[in-house]
């Protein structure tokens, strides 16, 4: 199966270069140069992963990210020129899975893309219960009282990783390597932001989380009781 990457970037030279590098790695590549046409391009391309620049003509990258998230959980990696905290966090909050800071090395980008695509695919029939949530690992679904809760694959993986070992506290670094596939220490904010997003979907009161609880000084754990 050939993985398709949708590159949404207004810089033609960079897009072309990305195309060369990605094709050399065996990816199929589609391009889009404008923010306002990005969503249409996404629908027609049906990519396995999206590379999204934050500064786009027509529509802001964060907006595009939010729009894609309304109907798809496909992995989104942001390309950001600024290492600014605010930009990275807004991007992650809009639903991006990961980000790379320009100028990045091709190897680094490929590693991130592959990590996104390599997400643990569960084949065995595994059904877990966490609190009042029912997790079906093979069907990739989470339900509460029979009502489906829509999670992105990343959010699902995050929940599943913790739900498999309830009561065990996971450090942010451990989650980064287990869920994101980071080999080296990465940005712990990735975990924090996505835990927030996950809580917003599965907790009855996200301000007083009962399922994914914070373990002070360590990280997070799932409260199965």
């Amino acid at each position, binding site marked *: 199966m050939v993985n398709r990457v949708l590159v949404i970037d207004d*810089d033609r030279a960079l897009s072309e270069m990305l195309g060369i*590098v990605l094709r050399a790695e065996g990816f199929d590549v589609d391009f889009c140069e404008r923010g306002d046409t990005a969503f249409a391009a996404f629908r027609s391309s049906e990519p396995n992963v999206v590379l999204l620049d934050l500064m786009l003509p027509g529509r802001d990258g964060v907006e595009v990210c939010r729009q894609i998230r309304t109907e798809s959980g496909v992995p989104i990696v942001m390309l950001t020129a600024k290492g600014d905290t605010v930009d990275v966090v807004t991007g992650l909050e809009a639903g991006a899975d990961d980000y790379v800071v320009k100028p990045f090395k*091709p190897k680094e980008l490929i590693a991130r893309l592959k990590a996104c695509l390599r997400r643990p695919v569960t084949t065995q029939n595994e059904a877990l219960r966490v609190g009042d949530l029912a997790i079906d690992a093979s069907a990739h679904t989470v339900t509460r009282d029979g009502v489906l809760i829509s999670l992105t694959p990343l959010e699902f993986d995050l929940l599943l990783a913790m739900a498999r070992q309830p009561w065990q506290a996971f450090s942010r670094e451990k989650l980064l390597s287990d869920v994101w596939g980071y080999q080296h220490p990465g940005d712990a904010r990735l975990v924090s932001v996505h835990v927030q997003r996950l809580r917003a979907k599965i907790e009855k009161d996200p301000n007083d989380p009962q399922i994914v609880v914070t373990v002070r000084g360590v990280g997070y754990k799932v409260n199965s009781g």
Partner: protein
Amino acid sequence: MNPLKIWRRSLQTRVVVTTTIASTLAVVVFGFLLVQVISSGVIDSKTRLSVSEAAIARDEAVRVVAAADTLSASLSEEALVDTVVSAVALRAGEPSVYDVLLLGAGAATNAENGARVPERGTNLVTEASVPTQLREALKESNRQAWQFSEIEFLDGVSQPGLVVGAPLEIPSIGRYDLYLLFPFTQEAETITLVRNATVGAGALLVGVLTLIAAFVTRQVVSPVRRVASVARELQRGNLAQRLRVQGEDDLASLAVSFNEMATDIEAQIRRLEEMSSLQQRFVSDVSHELRTPLTTVRMAADVLFQERSSLPPEAARSAELLAAQLDRFEDLLVNLLEISKVDSGAATLDSVDMDLLEVTESVVDSLQALAKRANVTLQLEGGPCPVTADRRRVERIVRNLVSNAIDHGDGRPVEITVACDSEGVALMVRDHGPGLVGDAPDRVFDRFWRGDPSRARTTGGTGLGLAIAREDARLHDGWLHAANAPDGGACFRLSLPNTPGGRLSRSAVSMPNAQELVRA
């Protein structure tokens, strides 16, 4: 509240209390002098009056004695004395201004028969009212004399008064002393009245002065307090705060000047803020505009580098150089942006709880390969040193100091010491290379300054490393010091307070040569 605190804090209290104390002192002194002058005036005139009255009375007595002597020698001693006393007493009027005592002088016995001479008085005063001193004085001088004394009445009452005495010769009996006793009842009352009035008026005056002081200082102090409160508001960043201007007096002109100053400061701050945000915006734009093409170049170089085996030798070498120099270019860009961020005041600390030893260990681990290439061994010693700081920045400082030491260590070991005390943590990196030569100690933290241009650079630093390290240390309110060790080699020391903003008075690690210390 503590009275001492109120005294120190409130100008108004101080002024009012000072005024009250000073005016009380003044009123007491003036009142005392006033009462003194009035009473001595009253007593003096009464005394003069009394003395001349006494002289006249004595003349009368002399006249009566002479008349009695010539007219009726048959009068008994008692009768004669009675006549004299009543004649003198008659002059006293009704109510009498004085009482009379006619006492025998000298031996007080009849010269002829030795019997006790008869003594008379107006029967209201006791003999004890006449002070002995006065009697002695009369005996010696034989002239009129007077003295203030307590006049004791027979009914037990006593009053201050004047006793005037004069000798009186009664030829048939002997020598007498005629005493007139003037009670100063009226005068004492007058003086008491004056004293009471003075005390009352003084107290009232002090009270009024206190109120006036309170009122006046309030007029001055309350605008000052308003200025102070507005100044506090301004200091808190509420730049639009202004004083209300009333009238045209000095305080109004203070308010006007203050408002002008506030307006100037506000404009200045706004301008600086604008400049700073413009600068930040520029940095951010440059960053974005540069990074995108740089990313493309980077990827292109990487592709060429991967394919270098299939390129002709010159092109292959060019691809290698391109890739290597791009790393440096990137480092330089990152450092420039970092410095620019600090300069525009946009740099912020992302503080976390961390351990300096652990950070140093990880930096040392990551630099082992570089050290090995330079044939340098890294020796790290020290215990866990917990500190709240920006991990990325601290890591950058440590990496900088250690890689510099490797670079300039001449293949000799580099010693790294980590320690902490109650105030903060410190790290010292010491190499055994040539040390800081020439103007190096002064310039080592300058931007783009390089130690020895002729030296080979293995790490290809950007020339901004120590300048950034200095800014990073400053952001933490920490220190960065450089010095030469006495036995050669350079020493760099980083000292950080336990939490950013904490105060350092000493470093947890001491430098080998404190004299040459250069503080960044």
